[in-house]
């Protein structure tokens, strides 16, 4: 073994370097930020899901001692509504986004109607009770399909039948023919319920304004500070981008919800400028539930068809996707491109047609939530593969296997408008999962137990997903309004310390750790000598942020490319110092030596010192080692895998016990197995949560019934099984690291795994499908309805 092999950092299960600060209570989250002269905002929210605002009287609130100001929607019409950055599918003037505070009409319960700015948060809250609003309630629609029905309440004049966009992918004619002529057709209605992302830290904003320079600073619990800066300046305030600095302090989880621009960013900035004092707003949990973004909310009719021997020949899909009362930052793209283009999953299906009808409803905005579109797709196809297998009386593992895209077919074009799947080999992941669970034995045990009146279910899910969405040119073709490249700057300081600044930013992903592991190996420097800087638009190159499992595949690659440039320059400088030919230089083990003469060398530290002092640079060379890369990948990456779980349901109560959970995930090369496992565990937990516990429920009046954590059942660790995680490794050819992405795979693979197991358990009762979440009550009813 070489010295390098023993000291290699990549591949090690290092603990996250981010964690000591966080777990010892030294984190600095948004609510920890306190500024001189800071005021506090509280928001009066509409109790109605749809109403005309006849009048608002704020005079009593303004008179309360300690209240600095009270603003209503019409005060802030000098700035624009929030932008929608991903108007996918083409818009005909029906793009409606929210204003900072509602003007004239409120369209969901929880929409801001007035904002109080006060000396402290208590006074601000007290003042809300002193504001009188006269509402004229209007009819409400919350269901994404019913919203399109004739006579349904209309949310926006420019959107007849509440339709945001009608979008299609695949081949309608060939699919209609395939369904019409198939030996077997299976139909189902599948609901992917609305969820609330529930980051542990809620969202919020603190804005300050310096009148002498006209510069804003915004602290925000954000997954994408540069994007927020761009959207808030260029689109909302119409000011130069340089007039806003955005800082994300420690971010306590995002799951997508913190990618988007929100009303509070605008009213805090607007009021800070108006008042000349910083303004702070931090949501409480109820506000987070009512007014920050939700996820999913699909109602789908689907038909799968094929031959009696199990081959799938066609898939026809019509989905109603509820996007809420207005369009959130990237909502239309999530419901279309990120969903509809991957809906065939790991299977080669020759005829596919998918229609998505995205609609406005009187509910909170729906946008990307962990997995963003791909969980909806994988749930749909994997549920249907089980329905298909059951219809034919075939084993669900076998049906999957015979329809898999084969290894030699990569790069694979699924015909739905994606760039080809990068690489994949699906059968080994399935085989490994089957072996780990002991599939044949479990089937025998299942049969045995059924005779005793005990109901075991085995659920399989084979999935593929899309990470690191790119290249920008392709994304632009999907309506994406910006770039999807990522940046990284690498600098080597005089002392040999390496500083990486990146547009990616960790909020649980461990970017500081994995990025440092990679740099340490590449440069042969100690891991502790590598610092990763992020999350502040001052001092980091423009970058698009952390979401869509893109940090490593896109941001990490940008960093590696910068490191490679540094190494090239180091070789040129070493050649100069050693009076050798630059082409003969070798960079290895933290040194540069002359090829064939390892003794003729300079350490990286020596070169860094020399370059930083810069007293005698060779001709044409600049001092300092400092390189920046803007990397736009040639394609997305496509992680995949198979999950299998075992459940037992109790007929008496419908109780569901999740007995085992096996995940075999192929995320490409693994930089840090501990972090990958952590991401998978968390992701699977969120998928299980969707299958068993979580549902955001609006009643017919648009009231959120699941508005607190006493009603919205986020599972705790005690409600979840141990995960048996394994991998296959199929490196991605898209990037030099060979990585695919691991942030969302767990969620994308899991909900249907659990549902398939439950429905398998219930098959003796004639159950073919059940909507999520599979509450004990639903299971109990299903078992008793068929008795």
């Amino acid at each position, binding site marked *: 073994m070489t010295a390098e092999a023993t000291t290699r950092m990549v591949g090690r299960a290092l603990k996250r370097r981010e964690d000591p600060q966080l777990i010892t209570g030294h984190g600095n989250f948004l609510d920890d930020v306190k500024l001189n002269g800071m005021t506090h905002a*509280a928001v009066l929210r509409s109790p109605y899901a749809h109403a005309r605002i006849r009048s608002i009287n704020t005079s009593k609130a303004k008179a309360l001692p300690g209240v600095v100001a009270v603003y209503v929607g019409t005060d802030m019409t000098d700035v624009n509504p929030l932008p929608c950055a991903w108007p996918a599918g083409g818009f005909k003037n029906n793009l409606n986004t929210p204003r900072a505070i509602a003007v004239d009409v409120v369209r969901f319960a929880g929409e801001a109607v007035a904002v109080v700015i006060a000396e402290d*948060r*208590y006074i601000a*809250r*007290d003042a809300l*009770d002193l504001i009188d609003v006269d509402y004229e309630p209007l009819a409400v629609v919350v269901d994404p399909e019913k919203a399109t029905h004739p006579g349904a309440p209309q949310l926006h004049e420019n959107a007849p039948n509440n339709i945001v966009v009608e979008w299609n992918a695949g081949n309608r004619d060939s699919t209609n023919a395939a369904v019409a002529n198939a030996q077997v057709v299976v139909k189902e209605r599948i609901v992917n319920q609305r969820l609330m992302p529930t980051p542990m830290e809620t969202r919020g904003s603190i804005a300050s304004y310096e009148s002498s320079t006209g510069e804003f600073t915004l602290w925000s619990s954000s997954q994408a500070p540069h994007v927020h800066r761009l959207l808030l300046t260029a689109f909302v305030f119409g000011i130069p981008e340089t007039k806003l600095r955005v800082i994300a302090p420690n971010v306590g989880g995002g799951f997508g919800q913190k990618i988007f621009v929100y009303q509070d960013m605008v009213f805090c900035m607007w009021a800070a400028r108006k008042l000349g004092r910083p303004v702070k707003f931090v949501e*409480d*949990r*109820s506000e987070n539930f009512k007014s920050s973004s939700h996820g999913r909310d699909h109602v789908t009719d689907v038909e799968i068809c094929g031959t009696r021997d199990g081959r799938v020949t066609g898939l026809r899909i019509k989905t109603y996707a509820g996007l809420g009362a207005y369009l959130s930052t990237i909502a239309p793209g999530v419901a279309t491109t990120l969903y509809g283009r991957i809906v065939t999953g790991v299977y080669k299906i020759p005829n596919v047609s998918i229609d998505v009808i995205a609609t406005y409803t009187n509910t909170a905005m729906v946008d990307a939530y962990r997995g963003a579109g791909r969980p909806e797709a994988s749930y749909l196809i994997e549920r249907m593969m089980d329905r298909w297998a059951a219809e034919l009386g075939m084993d669900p593992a076998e049906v999957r296997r015979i329809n898999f895209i084969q290894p030699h077919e990569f790069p694979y074009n699924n015909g739905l408008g994606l760039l080809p799947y990068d690489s994949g080999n699906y059968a080994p992941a399935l085989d490994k999962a089957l072996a780990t669970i002991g599939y044949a034995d479990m089937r025998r045990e299942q049969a045995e137990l059924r005779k005793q009146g005990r109901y075991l279910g085995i659920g399989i899910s084979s999935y593929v997903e899309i990470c690191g969405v790119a290249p920008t040119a392709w994304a632009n073709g999907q309506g994406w309004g910006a770039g999807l490249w990522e940046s990284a700057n690498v600098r080597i300081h005089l002392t040999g310390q390496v500083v990486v600044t990146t547009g990616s930013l960790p909020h649980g992903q461990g970017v500081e750790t994995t990025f440092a592991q990679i740099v340490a190996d590449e440069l042969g420097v100690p891991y502790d000598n590598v610092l990763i800087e992020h999350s502040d638009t001052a001092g980091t190159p423009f970058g698009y942020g952390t979401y869509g499992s893109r940090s490593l595949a896109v941001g990490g690659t940008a960093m590696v490319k910068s490191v490679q440039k540094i190494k090239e320059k180091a070789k040129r400088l070493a050649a100069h110092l050693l009076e050798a030919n630059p082409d003969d230089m070798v960079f290895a083990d933290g040194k540069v030596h002359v090829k064939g003469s390892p003794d003729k060398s300079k350490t990286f530290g020596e070169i860094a010192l020399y370059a930083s002092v810069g007293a005698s640079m060779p001709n044409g060379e600049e001092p300092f080692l400092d390189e920046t890369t803007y990397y736009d990948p040639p394609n997305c990456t496509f992680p995949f895998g198979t999950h299998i779980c075992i459940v037992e349901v109790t007929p*008496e*109560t419908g109780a569901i016990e999740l007995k085992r959970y096996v995940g075999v995930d192929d995320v490409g090369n693994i930089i840090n197995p501990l972090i990958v496992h952590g991401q998978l565990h968390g992701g699977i937990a969120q998928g299980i949560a969707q299958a*068993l*516990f979580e*549902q955001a*429920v609006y009643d017919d009046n648009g009231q959120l*019934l*699941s508005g607190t*954590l*006493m*009603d*919205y*059942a*986020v*599972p*705790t660790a005690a*409600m979840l099984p141990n995960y048996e995680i394994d991998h296959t490794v199929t490196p991605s050819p898209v990037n030099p690291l060979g990585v695919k992405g691991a942030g969302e795979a767990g969620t994308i693979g899991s909900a249907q795994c659990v549902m398939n197991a439950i429905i398998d358990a219930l098959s003796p009762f004639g159950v073919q499908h059940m909507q999520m979440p599979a*509450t*004990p*009550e639903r299971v*109990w*009813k299903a078992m008793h309805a068929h008795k």
Partner: protein
Amino acid sequence: MIPAAFQYVKANSVAEALVLLQQHGEDAKLVAGGHSLLPAMKLRLSQPTVLIDIAAANDLKGIAVNGNTLSIGAGETYHAIASSAAVKRTCAIVADCVGQIGDIQVRNAGTIGGALAHADPAADLTAVFLALGGSVSVASASGTRQIAADDMFVAMLTTALDSGEIITTVHVPVIGAGQGASYAKLKHPASRYAIVGVAAMVSMSGGKITSARVAVTGAGPQAVRQTATEQALIGTDGGDAASKAAASKAGDDMDYLGDIHASEEYRRAMVKVYAARAISAAVAQARG
């Protein structure tokens, strides 16, 4: 989630608390663990102007066995009760029940007195208290009195306590030879409160049940005894068939609540299932 303004005072004894209650009158509220009161205040469903904190009052602490009675200070926390050797030895159902309440934070703060005074429709202890036929000692400016379990719960979130009264001690019987008591609970997935909770206590003699008390919580607006079930048990051997037959009468004559996790229909059915479980476990214990 920001409460209205209030004044906070700490009472170090029941006597101090009574004086403070008199001083501040209707606007004052006692706070013990705060795990029911503070959430209500944060939602501004409750807006007392004075909070009298009795969590540190020493004379509300203490767990003692006197003859056939286990007496628990109203200020004892769930955690203290669940880990008390005396409780586990003499009336294990109470330790078992409070050990299932909420999560560790709730159990470290919530008190037995607070739970009974608050009478949440989904509280666990209310059913156990009813099934055991316990009682509470209550103090007020005008003296002390006892309230029997059967007289305690009047309506949703309403008890027989008067506004100036403090529960000082909770009494339950020691479970003796030939007796058994058990609590069975279907947990709410979000809050861990009872969707359905059934407590049963039986006394047996010569292989037959001589007395039985069964109470249901969670399913409806308040905890209620199930007299039809109790009657059906008496005189039987408490075996599977008898327990199930008696349990099938549970919940027929009571009001129900429903929510997004469990409808009235489901709760009705689960009352019977959990009644059977609680009765069987109580019988098994009574048989020794």
